[in-house]
C-alpha cells in the first residue's frame, strides 16, 4: 500500500516537473506579455525534435542539447514578439482587443509550426533511449532519465525564480507585469522586456521538450495537448503568478497520476473538469490576487 502510494505520488511529481516548466513559460507569456500562446506546445515539439535529431544523427548528449536548444528557441520567441506581437499591440485599440487578436495569431502559429514539423520530421512517433536504467526508490521503481528530468525541471524553475527576484532584469520583468505603462515611465525598456519574456517563455517550453524527449516517445502533433495542460496549470496557479504555475504543475501532475491509477481513460476529462470548475468557482487560482 505504501509502495503503491509512493509510486503514484512520485510518478506524479516526475510528470509535474515537466508540467511546471511548461506552465511557467506560458505564465510568463500571458502574465507579462499578455499573449495567451496557443502555440506554446509547439515549442515543446521543436525542442524535443531538435534534441532527437542531435542525438540520433550527431550523438550529442540530450542534456547538452539544453544549451543548444535553449538559445535557439529563445531567439525564435524573441523575434516573434518583436515582429508579430509588437505590431499587433500597436494596432490594437485596447488590451482586451490585443489579447483576442494575439490569441488568434498564436493559433495560426500553431498550425504553421506543427505542419512544418510534420513536413520536416513526419507524423510518426519517434523515440531514443537515454539513461533508461531502473532506479529503486523505497520500493517504487522508476527509470533514471525521469529522475534526471525532475532534477533539471526543479533546478531550472528555481534558477528562474531567483533570476526574477534577485536581478535588475527580473525586477524590470515584475514591474512590467504589474503595470507596463508606469514601468515604461520609470525607465524600463518595455518593448525589450516584453519580447524577453516571450522569448523566455518559449525557452521554458523548449527545455521541457528536451527533457520530455528523454523519457517519452515524441510526435509532431503532440504540442496542443501540452498547451492545454499548461493553460489548466496556469489557471490553477493563478494567471500571471510564476510560483503558482510552478506549484500548480506538481499538483496537476499528482492529480493526473491518481486519476490514471483509478481510471486511465478519464485522466484528460478530469483535467478539463478541474479546469472548468476552477474557472467557475475561483478564476484567480490558488496564488492569484
Amino acid at each position, binding site marked *: 500500500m505504501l509502495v503503491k502510494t509512493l509510486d503514484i505520488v512520485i510518478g506524479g511529481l516526475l510528470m509535474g516537473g515537466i508540467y511546471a516548466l511548461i506552465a511557467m513559460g506560458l505564465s510568463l507569456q500571458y502574465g507579462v506579455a499578455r499573449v*495567451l500562446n496557443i502555440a506554446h506546445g509547439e515549442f515543446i515539439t521543436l525542442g524535443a525534435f531538435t534534441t532527437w535529431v542531435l542525438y540520433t544523427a550527431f550523438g550529442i548528449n540530450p542534456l547538452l542539447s539544453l544549451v543548444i536548444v535553449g538559445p535557439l528557441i529563445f531567439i525564435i520567441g524573441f523575434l516573434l514578439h518583436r515582429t*508579430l506581437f509588437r*505590431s*499587433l499591440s500597436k*494596432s490594437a485599440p485596447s488590451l*482586451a482587443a490585443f*489579447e*483576442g*487578436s494575439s*490569441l*488568434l*495569431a498564436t*493559433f*495560426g*502559429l*500553431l*498550425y*504553421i509550426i*506543427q*505542419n*512544418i514539423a*510534420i*513536413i520536416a520530421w513526419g507524423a510518426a512517433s519517434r523515440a531514443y533511449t537515454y539513461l533508461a536504467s531502473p532506479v529503486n526508490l523505497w520500493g517504487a521503481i522508476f527509470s533514471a532519465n525521469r529522475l534526471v528530468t525532475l532534477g533539471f525541471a526543479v533546478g531550472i524553475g528555481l534558477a528562474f525564480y531567483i533570476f526574477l527576484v534577485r536581478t535588475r532584469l527580473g525586477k524590470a520583468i515584475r514591474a512590467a507585469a504589474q503595470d507596463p505603462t508606469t514601468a515604461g515611465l520609470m525607465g524600463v525598456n518595455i518593448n525589450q522586456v516584453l519580447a524577453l519574456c516571450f522569448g523566455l517563455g518559449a525557452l521554458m517550453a523548449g527545455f521541457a521538450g528536451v527533457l520530455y524527449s528523454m523519457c517519452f516517445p515524441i510526435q509532431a502533433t503532440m504540442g496542443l495537448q501540452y498547451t*492545454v495542460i499548461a*493553460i*489548466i496549470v496556469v*489557471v490553477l496557479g493563478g494567471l500571471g503568478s510564476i510560483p503558482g504555475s510552478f506549484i500548480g504543475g506538481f499538483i496537476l501532475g499528482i492529480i493526473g497520476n491518481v486519476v490514471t491509477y483509478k481510471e486511465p*481513460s*478519464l485522466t*484528460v*476529462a478530469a483535467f*478539463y*473538469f478541474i*479546469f*472548468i470548475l476552477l*474557472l*467557475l468557482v475561483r*478564476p484567480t487560482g490558488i496564488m492569484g490576487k
Partner: protein
Amino acid sequence: MDIARVTSKRSFLLGLLGLILVLLATLPLYAAGYTPILMTSIFMYIILTVSWTLFSGPTGYMSLAPAAFFGVGIYAAAILGKYVPLPVFIVAGGLASFIVALLVGALTLRLRGIYFAIFTFGLVMLIMQLLVFWELHVMGIRGRFVVVIHYNTIYYAMLIIFVVLMLTVYFIKRSKFGLALQSIGENEEAAAHAGVNVTMVKVITFAVSAFFMGAAGATIATRWTYIDPYIAFNVLFSFLPVLMAIFGGMGQLYGPVIGAAIFAYLQEKLVTTFSELYMLIFGIVLVVAILYMPDGLVGLIPRLWRRRAGGQRANT
C-alpha cells in the same frame, strides 16, 4: 440622395438576392453530382461563421464553443436518425444545442475577456473526453453510423437553414434587441444602466446562434455517415468560424459569408490532396489576416477605394 434612387437601389438589391436564391434553389437541376455536395459544405461553414458572428461580433465575447454546439447537433442526428425523418432531427439537434447554450450561457457569461474564450474551449474538450469515456467504457462502442440521405436533400436542408439564419440575423440587427446587443459590446455597464437586461440578451443570442450550429451539425452528419467524438467535437470547428469571420470582416452582414465561402471552397479543394500544406497555408493566412486586415476582406474594399479617390484628388 433622393427617395426614388434609394428605392430603386433597394429593389435592385432585392431582385439580385431573389435571383441568387432561385439559382441556388435550382442548382441540383443543372449541376448534378459534385456541385451540390461542395455547396453543402460551403453552406455549412457559412452557417457556422454567421452564427458565430451573430453573438461574438457585436458583444465582443470570443466564443470557442461552436464545436460543442456543432457536435451536439451531430450526435442528435446519430441517435435520432434511425427513428425520425430528417427535418425532425435537424430541429431536434438545433434545440438540443439551444438548451446546452442556455445552460452554459447562464453559467459562464459573467466570465469576461480571455476567461470566456478559454472556458468555452475547455467545454468542448470536456464534452469530447466524457463522450469518449462513455462510449468506450459504459456502452462499449467506438463511434456510430448515421443514417444515409441523398445529397440533394442534404443540400436543400442546408440551404433552408442558411436562409432562415440570414433572415434571423437581418431582423435581429434591425430590431431593438439588436441595438441592445450592440450596446453590450460597446459598454456593458452603461447598457445595464440604460435598462438593457444584459444577461438575458446575451444568453438568448448565444442560444440562438447555437441553434443554427446544432442544426448544421445534424444535417452534415448524414453526409459523413460515420462519426465518433473526435470527429464530432473536433476543436477545429471552434476556430474555423472565428478565422473565417475575421478573414471576411465582421463589420458587414455579408463579410462572414464571403470569408466562409472562400475558405470553405479552398478547404474542399486542397485538404484532401495537400493536407499538411493546406494547414500550413491556413496558419499563414490567419496570421496575415490578423496583422494586415483588421476589418477583413470587406474592410479592404473601402480602404482601397478611399486610397484611389484620394489619389485622384491629389492629381487635380
